[in-house]
C-alpha cells in the first residue's frame, strides 16, 4: 500500500554513512548496494576504474615521475633539436626509455612527469571547486527551501542573478584582471561563485518536497529545533541527488579549468595543468602531434570517466533526474 515508492536502496544509502556506529547490525550495508549496482554496469565500472587510476596517478605524481627519472621542471637539452625550433629528437614526440611519454619541445621537459603533475593541479581545482559549490549550493538550497518566505525570495533572486551572469565571460574577465594572487585559489572561488545555483536549485526543490513530509512534522512536534531538523531529517534525505549531481559537476569543473587555462587566464604556467599544457601544445599540433595528444587524452579520459560515473550514480540515487 505504501505511498513510499522511493526505492529503498536509495533510502538507506546515505543513512549508513551518516551513522556508521548504529548501523553495524543491519545486514545489507546500503552503500554496498549502491556499489553493487555501479559495478554491475559496464560503463560505470569503466568510469570507476579510470577515475581511480587517475586519482591515484595524480596523488602519486611526485613518486611516479621520479620513477621516470625526471621532475616536471627539469630541462633536457639533449632531447630536443635546437636547429629545428626545439622539436623533440626521435619519433612520436621523443617517446623513449628516457622519456616515457616524450618531451616538451624547446625545453625537453619530461611529459610523463608534467602530465602527472598537471593532473594533480587540474583535479585539485576540480575537486575543491566542486566542494565549494556543493557546500554553498546545499546550504543555500536547504535554507531557501526550508525557511521559505523572505529567505527563499532573497536566495532565489540571488540564484536568478547569478545564473543570468554570462559565467564563462565573467570568469575570464575576473581571472584576467586579478594579478598577483594565488591562481589556484582564485580559480576555485571564481568557478564556485558561478556554479552554486545549479545545485542550490536541486536541493531547494528537494527540500520543498521534503519539508512537509510527516517525519519532519513529527520532529517538530517532538520539539526539534530548525538546525536539528535540517541536519538530521532533511539533509540525509537530499544527499542522494546531491551525490549524483556532484559527480556530474566534476567533469564540468575539469573542463572549465582547462578552458580558462587554455585561454591563458587559468593556472600560471610554472605550474602545469592539463588545459595549460594543451594551450602550449596546440601550436605544435602538426609538427609534434604527440605533445598535443597526450594532455588532450588525459583531459578527455578524466571528463569521460566522471561523466559515466555520474550518469550511473544519478540513475541509481536519483532516478527522477533531480530536476527542479
Amino acid at each position, binding site marked *: 500500500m505504501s505511498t513510499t515508492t522511493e526505492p529503498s536502496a536509495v533510502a538507506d544509502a546515505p543513512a549508513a554513512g551518516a551513522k556508521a556506529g548504529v548501523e553495524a547490525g543491519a545486514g545489507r550495508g546500503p552503500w554496498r548496494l549502491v556499489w553493487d549496482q555501479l559495478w554491475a554496469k559496464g560503463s560505470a565500472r569503466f568510469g570507476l576504474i579510470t577515475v581511480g587510476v587517475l586519482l591515484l596517478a595524480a596523488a602519486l605524481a611526485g613518486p611516479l615521475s621520479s620513477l621516470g627519472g625526471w621532475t616536471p621542471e627539469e630541462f633536457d637539452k639533449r632531447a630536443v633539436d635546437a*636547429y629545428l*625550433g*626545439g622539436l623533440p629528437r626521435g619519433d612520436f614526440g621523443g617517446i623513449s626509455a628516457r622519456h616515457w611519454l616524450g618531451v616538451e*619541445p624547446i625545453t625537453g621537459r619530461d611529459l610523463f612527469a608534467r602530465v602527472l603533475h598537471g593532473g594533480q593541479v587540474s583535479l585539485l581545482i576540480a575537486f575543491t571547486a566542486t566542494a565549494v559549490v556543493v557546500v554553498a549550493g546545499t546550504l543555500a538550497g536547504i535554507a531557501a527551501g526550508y525557511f521559505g518566505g523572505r529567505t527563499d525570495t532573497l536566495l532565489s533572486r540571488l540564484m536568478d542573478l547569478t545564473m543570468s551572469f554570462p559565467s564563462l565571460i565573467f570568469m575570464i574577465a575576473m581571472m584576467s584582471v586579478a*594579478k598577483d594572487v594565488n591562481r589556484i585559489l582564485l580559480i576555485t572561488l571564481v568557478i564556485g561563485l558561478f556554479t552554486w545555483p545549479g545545485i542550490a536549485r536541486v536541493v531547494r526543490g528537494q527540500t520543498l518536497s521534503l519539508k512537509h513530509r510527516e517525519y519532519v512534522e513529527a520532529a517538530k512536534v517532538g520539539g526539534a529545533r530548525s538546525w536539528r531538523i535540517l541536519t538530521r531529517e532533511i539533509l540525509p534525505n537530499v544527499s542522494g541527488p546531491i551525490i549524483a549531481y556532484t559527480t556530474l559537476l566534476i567533469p564540468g569543473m575539469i573542463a572549465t579549468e582547462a578552458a580558462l587555462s587554455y585561454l591563458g587566464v587559468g593556472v600560471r*604556467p610554472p605550474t602545469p595543468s592539463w588545459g595549460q599544457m594543451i594551450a*602550449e601544445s*596546440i601550436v605544435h599540433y602538426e*609538427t*609534434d602531434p604527440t605533445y598535443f595528444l597526450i594532455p588532450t587524452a588525459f583531459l578527455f579520459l578524466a571528463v569521460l570517466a566522471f561523466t559515466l560515473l555520474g550518469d550511473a550514480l544519478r540513475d541509481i540515487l536519483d532516478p527522477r533526474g533531480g530536476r527542479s
Partner: protein
Amino acid sequence: MTRRTHAALAAALAATLTLGLGACKNDKSDSGGDAAPSSTKGPGAESGSVVGGTPAKGGTLTVLTNQDFAHLDPARNWVVPHMDFGTRLLYRTLTTFKAEPGAAGSEIVPDLATDLGKSSEGGKVWTFTLKDGLKYEDGSPIKSADIKYNVERSFSPDLTGGPDYAQQYLAGGESYKGPLTGEHLASIETPDEKTIVFHLKRPVAEFSDTVTLPTFSPVPQSQEKGTQYDSRPFSSGPYKIEAYDRGKQLVLVRNTNWDPATDTVRKAYPDKVVVTQGIKGGQADDRIIASDGADANAINMPWMQHETVAKVLPKADVKSRMVAERTGCTDMLYLNTAKAPFDDPKVREAMMWAVDREAQVTAFGGPAVTDVATSFLPPSLTGGATSDPLKIPAAGDPEKAKALLKEAGRTDLKVALTVSLGDKTRAEAIQQSLAKAGVQVTVNTTDPSAFADTVGDIKNAPELTINGWCPDYPSGATFLPFLFDGRTIKEKGNQGNYSQFRDQATMDRMDQIAAMTDVAEANKAWQQLDQDLMKKAPAVPLMWQRRPLLVGTNVAGAFGNSGYAGMIDLAVVGLKDPAKGKG
C-alpha cells in the same frame, strides 16, 4: 628594450592572450645576425638577403595579422610593426630610414625634409626645410605648421601611447597639454610654410634620427578628430585608407596625390594593401606556407611563430621565403647592484660566467631566430661587427663562476628572479644554469602588464630581472644612458636601469659623449663605454633576437629592415606577378 618596445609589449600581451601562449617573447630582444659567435651558422635566413627579387607594379598585397593596430594616429603610434606600417604607407616623416636590406636599413635619409636638418647653438636648435610639391590625399599642400601641430598633439593626455621624445627634448614641454586646449608650443617655430624650427632643452646630436618617429609627420589642424583620428589618419604617404573595420580588416588604396618624385624611399608597388586582422598566428604562418590562391600575396605581421620554425626549415622552398633580420635589441639579465649580493662586482662577474646563453637561445626558438649576445650594444650600434670583450663561452663556465664566487666569499647564494609571463621558459633556463654554479634561484612570473610596476618599484625590486632594450634609432644615445645612467633611477616606475647601477665614472663619461656634436665620434665613444661596462657587469647580455617572417610565393622585394627592428620594409615590398592571387 627601448621605449618602443613597451608599446610592443602591450600589443604582445594581446597576442599572448589571443594565441594562448607566450608569443610576447618575441618583442624584446635583439637582432643578431647570422654572425653569432657561438653557432657556426644559423640555418635561418641570412641577414640582408632579399626574398623574391624585384617586384612589379600593381596587384594586391595581403598582410595577415593576429591583432588590430594599437594606434595608427601618428601622435600615438609607437609599436614597431605599426610604425613600419604607418610611416611607410600612410604618412611621411621629416626623415626616415633607408629602404635597404642589412645594416644600410638603419641609415637615415631625408623624407619630407630636403636634408637631415641643420643644427645650431651647439645642437640645441634644429631647422628643417620641406620639399616642394608635397600633398595630402585630398591634394592640399603639406605645410610645416601641420608637423608642428602633430608634435603638439603628442602632448595631449587624450592621445596616449605615442613616443615621448618631444616631451623630453623640446623646451617648455613640461607643462604643455597639447593643442586641443587652444594653446600652442612656443619652442616649435614655423616662420614660413616650408620651414620648421625646433628649440631643444639641451643639445641632441642625433635629432635627425629622432624625427624619423611618426610624431614628426604632418596632421592638418582641419582634420583633427581627437581620439577618433586613430581610425582614419589623413594620408600624406603613397596610400590612403579606403575602409577600416577595426579588428577585422583594413584596406589601403593608392593615394593619387602622392608624388613619387618627392619620395626617394617608397616605391609603392602594389595597387592595394589589405590587412586581414584577427587571424591566429599559427594559422597565418600555415596559410603563407601553403600560399594557396590569394595567400601567395601574403606576408605576416608582426612575426612568425617560433613553433613554425620546425615546419619551415626542413622545406627548402619555404625556407627560402623566410626573412629573419636582426631586431636591434639586446636581452639582458639585470643584476640588482643596489643590494647584496650583486653590489659586489666580483659576484656580478661570476654571473657573466655562470649564465648559459646557449640555453637562452634554445629556449627562444634556437639559433635560427636568435643569436648569443656578447655585449650590451647590439651589432647594429657597433658598426655591424660583433663586439665580444669578455670572450666567455656561450654555454657559460660554471666552474669558473664557482671559483669567482669563492674568491668573493659568497657561496650558497639564494636570489629571486622576476620575469614577465612570456619569459617563463627562459627564466627556468637561467634557474638551471645558475644552479650549476651553486646559486639557487626562485622564479616569480608576473603578468606582462604588471611586470613594469613590479620590477620598477626599486625598494622591492628582485635581485634578478630579465628584460631587453631596443634603440629607437641607431645611436648609442638611445641605448646605454637608458640602461646604466644612475640618475634615471626612480623610486617607483623605474625602468631601463633595472640594475640600479650608479657609477660616477660611467655617468661622467655619458655626459661627455652626449655633448659631442660629431655623431661618428660619439658612436665610437659609446662602443668603448660598452666595453668598459661589460667589465663592470651591471647586467649579463643574453641574446640578440631576430624577427622571423614569412612571405607568400608571389611576394617580391621582401627583406627585414633593421631600422624597424627587422620588420619587412613595406616601402618597397610588392608582388612578382600582380595578376596572380586575385581574390
